[in-house]
């Protein structure tokens, strides 16, 4: 049974997305911790190669296998647990190759070894930039299929655009449909099989030109990689589509995190539109790292300095608060604009100092966020 089948017991999915530096990882960790303390079995996965999630949870390092996070003594009857993992692009790729080569009637384990030994495969598998999106879907499929989790929280990497991630299944399908794959698998037959002499001649010329650019060795390796790989791609597309369906079906949603700066808000709103266009659900935008002082229209309030204040404190307070006033005014403008654009109140999170590995700090941060069910219920869905 496919993980995307309606009625199948399935985990809830939360995907944290947003620009770099907005605090996605910390919020993802705080949300996962909070849910585990409320009794859910939670896996939090980061796609970011940087050690931010490990740091946030106080783990030495994260790997491909979910590692338990010590959340302290569970309360009575609390069956919740928290595990964390980091997407290992080439590890996931290797596993997929092993499994699919084993499943397939046309390939066998020596095919798997041949693929893994191909330098082109190794370079593709190791490149998080080009393989990351595909492998994120594969790993999510494995996690969803395992039935070990009530909630899967995904922390997306800063440099990876959500669009790249989300269009992965379609791009893969498109690649599969190009004649190029057939051409590389068997140039002569592909060219001869369909159509005219002109087409055949064109194919030969094109391959010749490609060879001139790349050198013969590289073309040979690419061709052999694509030949072996083409057989697996159908299954890869199918699994990616499954996950895409999971992401677009309740109870799943994207949580977009923004700083209260104009640039960050614009980027976040654009991302939100894109997700809604693709039919995904989006929770109210989190305005993170807000200056912990309410903006006052009246400007700097006067206060009585106690007698023990050292000289110059009145001027100091005035100066500092003038700067803070500018900051708060900017933030208020930006959050108002987000609320106008989304017709929803932003989720306000103050700039709390979260010590690396301090779960009590994460718990404090989690307290500022809505409960999981409320968050999912507040999400709006694109058509």
């Amino acid at each position, binding site marked *: 049974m496919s993980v995307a089948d309606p009625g199948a017991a399935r985990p809830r999915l939360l995907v944290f997305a947003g620009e*770099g530096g907005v605090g996605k990882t910390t919020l993802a960790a705080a949300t996962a911790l909070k849910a585990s303390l409320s009794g859910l079995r939670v896996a939090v996965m980061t796609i970011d190669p940087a050690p931010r999630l490990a740091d946030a949870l106080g783990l030495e390092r994260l790997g491909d296998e979910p590692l338990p996070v010590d959340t302290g003594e569970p309360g009575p009857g609390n069956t919740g647990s928290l595990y964390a993992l980091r997407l290992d692009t080439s590890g996931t790729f290797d596993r997929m190759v092993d499994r699919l080569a084993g499943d397939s009637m046309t390939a066998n384990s020596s095919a798997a070894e041949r693929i893994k030994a191909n330098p082109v495969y190794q370079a593709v598998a190791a490149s998080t930039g080009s393989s990351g999106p595909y492998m994120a879907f594969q790993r999510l499929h494995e996690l969803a299929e395992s039935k070990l989790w009530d909630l899967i929280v995904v922390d997306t990497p*800063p440099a990876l655009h959500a669009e790249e991630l989300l269009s992965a299944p379609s791009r893969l399908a498109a690649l599969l449909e190009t004649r190029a794959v057939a051409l590389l698998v068997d140039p002569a037959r592909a060219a001869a099989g369909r159509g005219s002499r002109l087409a055949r001649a064109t194919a030969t010329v094109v391959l010749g030109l490609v060879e001139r650019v790349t050198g013969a060795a590289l073309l040979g390796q690419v061709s052999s990689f694509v030949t072996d790989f083409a057989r697996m791609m159908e299954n890869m597309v199918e699994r990616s589509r499954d996950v895409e369906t999971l992401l677009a079906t309740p109870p799943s949603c994207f949580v977009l995190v923004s700083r209260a700066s*104009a640039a960050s808000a614009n*980027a976040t709103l654009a991302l939100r539109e894109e997700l809604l266009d693709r039919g995904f659900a989006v929770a109210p935008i989190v305005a993170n790292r807000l200056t912990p002082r309410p903006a006052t229209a009246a400007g700097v309030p006067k206060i009585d300095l106690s007698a023990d204040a050292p000289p110059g*404190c009145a001027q100091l307070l005035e100066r*500092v608060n003038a*700067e803070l006033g500018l*900051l708060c005014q*900017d933030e208020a403008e930006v959050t108002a604009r987000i609320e106008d654009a989304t017709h929803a109140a932003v989720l306000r999170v103050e700039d709390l100092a979260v010590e690396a590995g301090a779960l009590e700090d994460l718990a404090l941060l989690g307290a500022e966020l809505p409960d999981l069910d409320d968050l999912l219920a507040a999400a709006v869905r694109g058509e």
Partner: protein
Amino acid sequence: MAARFVYITGKGGCGKTHLSELLAEGARRRGLPVLRLSLDDRSRTGDSNIRARQGLATTPLLLDRGAALRDLLASLFRLGFIADRLLDSSSFKAVAEAAPGVGELVTLTWIERVGYRLGKGLVVIDGPSSGHAAALLRSPRTVLGLASSGAIARAARKLEQLLSDPRRFRSLVVATPEDFSLNESRLLTTELAELGVAALPPVLNAVYPLHADPAQLAWLEQAANDDQTLVGARWHQQRARRHASVIEQLESADRNAIVIPFLFGGNGQQPGNEAMAAAERLSGRVLGAFS
């Protein structure tokens, strides 16, 4: 004389784009021809109003991957129509996508050609964030590892020469004090250095000004007053003090570190004087380091 290139990188959110604007503006004010390149093909157009009010209204040159690929092919074949023929072919596109390092090589070639057309001047590259900064610069090596002959190998060799020439190409690693780790910054600089890319002095961006003297700071922290004015001032100055200790830490590792202040009123209430001062200081330090 050939163009000089500054490749700006750092963690997400460290202010790479803002730094690239400051540097470009500062260099322009010194009378240098400047081009600012954005490798992010979806530009953040919405904040141009704010930038205009800060006096930083420059539009970056955006990477157009399709055009850049055509450029590369045209230079490889020296004949535009062959490039066009290839680009029409879906098989070629599939190969270009499947072959690792080609996309990055296309980007680097574009950067190099833009600089070549600019001639004497400064090319400011608003680069990818730390995780991907090295991958882009490594692409000539990746390609050379897979293909040692052919036109693409020659193009890759030429790019390697550019990257490893400290008179022409330098990296600029940016961090904010909020998100600073000396180790991470060093790792990134080392990673780039291993690819032959020489570093400019490290930049610490968005540093809060410490207005309080030690006595005032002690009073702020102890004052048993939860008035919002005090609470806000305490938060602000504690942050400034943390930032000061980060500066110390960075400067003890590298005396040449460049410190850029946090610009309050970024949404435009303030005239751009502070931004201009930062632009001039930054460009002075960067251009000085090149020569």
